[in-house]
């Protein structure tokens, strides 16, 4: 072994490739050949998972409970009662915010009863007029971050109102305003606990890895089984999706607080809690902020998926519009989602960056300027809405709520744009589509499916060995072994083929575009804005035009994948290049390199470890999109995950399939992180 590891990495790699090729060509493809495909030892697991979930939810520890609807006692399992109470609490919060924004009766019902509300017509909570919400958002924007944020908030709210999307937007907002704080809170709690306890950190680490790489489709079914269908289920699925990055960033932040700061805190006589809240958390504010930013982005990225399990709002309307192929309408809805994301993000950033001025000597009016303005806005808005009832006679009060069919729309414009695209580009793209499918995609897919399982193991574990020694080889081998022992190995190979193709193209595009944009600070800002936009812009919208141009084919899926997965590779390239130490750049310039040489020989190699982290993210993004590609039509793991939504064994199948996808991601993740860390050390960047 020592003999072997002394050879250079290249020779090792060639050796593994050679063995891989020999194995590939010599092993007989037959179902009974262990070297070709492993038997599905784990095929029974989904049913077991399913049965245990069913047992826990519907039979375990039944309690007697009086049901007033059917006026009888009925047996109901304990766990179901517990999860339903959680659902109820979350739903109550969502309803409360929603009714403050849009009006309604459910909050009153929660304290009285439906009968009471029916008998008392006054028991109806009025909505905040849209003018009040908009003005409040503008004032808040101004208070937190000045005139620019105020203008952004103004544009966003007026856009939403004018395009008649006020109601769905507020519905989405109400569930985000519950899911996002909950995620931040849970993230902080778990992050702090993991910081305190090594054991918890060790337990959390793999769970976080899985949660971040598992496609969200796969836990929709379990969430509905445990928590039911509705806004609360959407919120819970969103929390599962949005919390992991928050935990990670909190932990990262706490760990990076320098010991001097902690000692200073202790010397000043802080107790445990003061140390945490007055010293640790304030000094790692920056990481927490990035966490909050990520949570908000994740929450809005889930807006559409959450509507699969009952979340009302923009996401649901978007799916409905797409089903009628009304792309223009879907686009307007998508822009609303992006606008809400951007405004919330900037508001939370502004709020967190606001420094409290402890020394200012202010009068009551000065100190409470903004709350007073908000009260004034509320009064003025309400009066305006009341006057509106006299001005608008046709039953629609434009000063109160603009119903969603009364706004203006640019639908026809976008629609004709799509029509134009299809009419003019279709013919030209057919040649490209055909060529790509026949010459690249089909051969590549067949090559992946033609790999014997033993050869795949040899190659991947070999790569693991080169990168991180025997330990890495065993880790990635373990991930593969799990997938190989399910009955979905072939499906996983198809997922792997599409992901590989998507990642290669995305990385090339991302690195080229990123390198170009990083040369100029304005272009850097612009491209980062584009990245943010596309990250929250619901990918479902571009699925439809893509299908119209490329049909239900792998090309369509891959184009969607590339659009989405190019985001992280671009972002990390830009960040990596911009963060190359100024001194090194200057040193290069003084040694007489030109701009191009500096980029290729100094900046790119130095930025490469960071870019590799981007590639890691690209893999995760590509996997996600390949799975969503099942909505177009694929024959990989994604199709089965989609199918699990209606399966008898949906819970078990969904989770197992999700794990398969997660393990593909984690195997790649392990290799890349390991390599990048070694490389950074070698370059002296750590």
């Amino acid at each position, binding site marked *: 072994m020592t003999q072997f590891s002394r050879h250079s990495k290249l020779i090792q790699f060639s050796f593994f490739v050679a063995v891989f090729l020999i194995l590939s060509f010599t092993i007989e493809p037959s179902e009974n050949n262990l070297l070709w495909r492993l038997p599905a030892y784990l095929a029974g697991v989904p049913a077991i998972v399913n049965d245990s979930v069913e047992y826990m939810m519907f039979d375990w520890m039944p309690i007697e409970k009086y049901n007033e609807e059917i006026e009888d006692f009925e047996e109901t399992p304990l766990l179901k009662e517990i999860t339903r109470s959680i659902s109820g609490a979350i739903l109550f919060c969502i309803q409360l915010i929603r009714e403050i924004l849009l009006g309604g009766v459910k909050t009153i019902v929660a304290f009285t009863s439906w009968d009471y509300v029916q008998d008392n017509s006054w028991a109806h909570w009025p909505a905040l007029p849209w003018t009040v919400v908009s003005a409040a958002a503008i004032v808040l924007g101004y208070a937190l971050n000045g005139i620019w944020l105020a203008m952004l908030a103004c544009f966003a709210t007026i856009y939403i109102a004018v395009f008649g999307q006020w109601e769905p937007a507020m519905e989405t907002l109400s569930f985000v305003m519950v899911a996002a704080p909950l995620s931040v809170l849970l993230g902080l709690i778990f992050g702090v606990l993991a910081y305190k306890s090594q054991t918890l950190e060790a337990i959390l680490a793999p769970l976080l890895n899985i949660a971040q790489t598992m496609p969200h489709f796969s836990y929709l*079914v379990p969430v*509905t089984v445990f928590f039911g269908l509705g806004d609360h289920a959407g919120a819970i699925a969103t929390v599962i999706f949005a919390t992991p990055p928050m935990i990670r960033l909190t932990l990262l932040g706490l760990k990076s607080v320098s010991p001097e700061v902690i000692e200073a805190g202790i010397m000043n006589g802080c107790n445990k809690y003061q140390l945490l809240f007055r010293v640790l958390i304030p000094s790692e504010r920056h990481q927490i902020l990035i966490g909050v930013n990520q949570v908000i982005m994740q929450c809005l990225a889930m807006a559409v998926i959450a509507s699969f399990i*009952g979340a*009302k709002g923009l996401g649901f309307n978007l799916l409905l519009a797409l089903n009628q192929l009304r792309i223009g309408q879907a686009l307007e809805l998508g822009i609303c989602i992006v606008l809400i994301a951007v405004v919330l993000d900037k508001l939370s950033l502004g709020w967190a960056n606001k420094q409290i001025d402890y020394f200012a000597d202010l009068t009551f009016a000065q100190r409470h300027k903004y709350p007073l303005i908000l009260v004034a806005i509320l009064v003025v808005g309400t009066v305006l809405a009341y006057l509106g009832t006299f001005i608008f006679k046709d039953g629609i009060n434009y000063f109160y709520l603009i119903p969603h069919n009364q706004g203006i729309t640019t639908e026809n414009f976008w629609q004709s744009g799509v029509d134009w695209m299809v009419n003019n580009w279709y013919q030209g793209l057919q040649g490209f589509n055909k060529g790509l499918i026949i010459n690249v995609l089909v051969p590549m897919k067949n090559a992946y499916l033609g790999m014997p399982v033993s050869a795949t193991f040899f190659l991947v574990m070999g790569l693991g060995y080169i990168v991180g020694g025997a330990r890495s080889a065993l880790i990635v081998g373990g991930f593969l072994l799990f997938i190989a022992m399910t009955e979905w190995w072939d499906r996983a190979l198809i997922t792997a083929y599409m992901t590989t193709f998507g990642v290669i193209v995305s990385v090339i595009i991302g690195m080229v575009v990123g390198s170009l944009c990083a040369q100029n600070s304005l272009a850097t800002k612009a491209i980062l804005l584009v990245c943010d936009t596309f990250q929250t812009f619901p990918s479902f919208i571009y699925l439809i035009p893509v299908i119209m141009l490329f049909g239900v084919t*792998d090309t369509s899926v891959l184009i969607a994948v590339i659009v989405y997965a190019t985001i992280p590779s671009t972002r990390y390239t830009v960040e990596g290049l911009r963060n190359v130490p100024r001194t090194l750049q200057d040193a290069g310039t003084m040694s007489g390199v030109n701009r191009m040489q500096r980029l290729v020989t100094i900046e790119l190699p130095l930025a490469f470890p960071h870019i590799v982290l981007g590639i890691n993210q690209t893999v995760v993004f590509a996997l996600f999109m390949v799975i969503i590609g*099942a909505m177009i*039509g694929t024959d990989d793991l994604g*199709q089965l995950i989609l199918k699990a939504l209606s399966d008898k064994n949906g819970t078990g199948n969904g989770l197992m399939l999700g794990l398969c996808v997660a393990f593909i991601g984690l195997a790649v993740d392990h290799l890349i992180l390991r390599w990048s860390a070694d490389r950074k050390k070698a370059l002296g960047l750590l």
Partner: protein
Amino acid sequence: MRKFKNKLVAGIFALILTAMAGQAMAKDSSKPIRIPTHNWSSQVVMAYVIGGIFESLGNNVEYVPADSQAVYEAIRNGDVTISHEVWQSTFGKSFYNAMAKGGLIDAGTHSASTLEELGVPHYVVEKNLCPGLPNWEALKNCAEVFATADSGGKGRILEGPQSWHGDLMPNRIKALGLGDKFVVKFAGSADAIWAELAAAKKEGRGIITFNWTPNFTDADGFDFIEFPPYQDGCRIADGGDGSCGSPKGWLKKAANYKFPKTHPAAYSAFSKLSFTTAQIGQMAALVDTEKLSHQDAAKKWLADNEAVWMAFTK
């Protein structure tokens, strides 16, 4: 005296009877009836139509967006009260699965008969792209009309997601001896089928897709392929060779088992409720062709068809 006693007994009996009748006609609970909305127009409009009927009976109604396959599990658990469009071949399996587990009841059938089958847009027949259609035997001679880049020279048949009817179509194509001329591609969602249909129409090219009626595509004309007629036991799952076409299917309604007890009046209306193909088509057309919003379409339909729906509430 004896007579009086008899009268008294009769009177008490009558009182008990009316009391019992009163019990049976108990007032509906004021808790809202939760109606699911899925992602196609006729279903959403009908949800608002049924909601409107319930509201006219004094019930509270709430609409819950839900996945059309996951909804049956939700009805079973009581998270959703009813489902009003249970298509036989697409949702039959989920429906019966949930019913077997308990908690979901069959609330009757619409009079609309449905057909869920492979077919071609009307222009394919009109332009005679494949002479002999809609008879299936015509397919033997024009696979290339329906070929696509990834079909390897064979004709491509675009089937719905695999969750809808598993391998039914691939098996049928094989059983009919078309296996070496056609491949079946599973689309990922109904949207994907509509997008392909729209693109194919723009280009005027031949396309075979899975589709159903009543549907909004009826307006543009869609011809279902006439496969060998369906008989009991002709499918592979029932022991046949699987070569037969789809049966004229039912469109059922489902409800949570508590619904008849909690909302007897609403349940009675819901179980009587039955729409025809034409009525469902009208509802979809109000949205798809007249571009009304779903709520407005439902309001308009209820106003225009009062005689139809009032009968259900009697």
